[in-house]
């Protein structure tokens, strides 16, 4: 790998720093891994897999509980709603007549005062 693309820095300190990096590289050789490196890595991979699976399992359980609760609520609410009919059995004209039943009386009453 190249070490050519370096920005120049002024002064002797920059040169000292350059040589310090080289000495550091030499003082830190690539370490050998221990015999446990691979078994521990696979243990960690497996642990993460179990953890992820259990998270999904918890999520699935939470969804199942929520769905059950919703079903129960709907099951309780629907019969109640059915007891109180939303729609009237009367025709539109009949409903209007009921709503404005007092209008004619008021008119008559107003006329009698005259």
């Amino acid at each position, binding site marked *: *790998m*190249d*070490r*050519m*693309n*370096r*920005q120049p*820095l002024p002064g002797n*300190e*920059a040169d*000292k*720093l*350059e040589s*310090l*990096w080289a*000495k*550091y*590289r*030499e*003082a*830190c*050789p*690539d*370490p*050998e*891994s*221990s015999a446990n*490196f*691979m078994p*521990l*890595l696979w243990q*960690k*991979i497996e642990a*993460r897999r179990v953890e992820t699976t259990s998270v999904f399992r918890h999520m699935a359980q939470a969804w199942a509980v929520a769905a059950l609760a919703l079903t129960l609520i709907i099951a309780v609410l629907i019969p109640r709603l059915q007891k109180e009919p939303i729609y009237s059995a009367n025709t539109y004209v009949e409903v209007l007549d009921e709503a404005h039943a007092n209008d004619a009386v008021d008119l008559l009453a107003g006329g009698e005062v005259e």
Partner: protein
Amino acid sequence: MLVDFALIERARSGDDSAFSQVVQAYKKRILGTIARLIGRPEDVEDVGQEVFLRLYYSLEQLRTAEVFEPWLYRLTVNAAYDYLRRQRRRRESRMSDLSEQQVMMADAAAGGKLSEEEQRRGKVREHVQALLEKVSEEDRILLTLKEVEGLSLKELEKIYGVNENALKVRLFRARQRVLKAHELQAEQL
């Protein structure tokens, strides 16, 4: 590339034995890079396992096998960065923070067990690590990759996902900060 593309493709498609071969091939290089990035030999394997663990679970996101090495380096940089941040937080809450290696070195030096060469190397490591502790984790990692690992700007571009000019600016500033820390350290000695 230390392995052929076909092996990476096999590992990517879920072949565990291919993945093991990839780890075996890159293990030494990655552990070496981590050792120089974090400066604490006793934690190198832990961070290395974290890198390969992240690799295992992110391999399917790799677009092509050609970009495998920069991808692996990016994971290494991220894991080292996370480790250094954790260490900094931990260090802030503790008075002394000698690594196991520093303690062993001090013990061995006191007992006269270390060779002169090993003592010289130990001093270089201590000096550079003390210097790198004085700059941010970002500067430390970028400088180590460029100056110690010897990565080219092209390779760094792929790892950091920024263009060459932006990298040159970052490198220049990081070098200036380290140089300043170096001068301060020299004054204190």
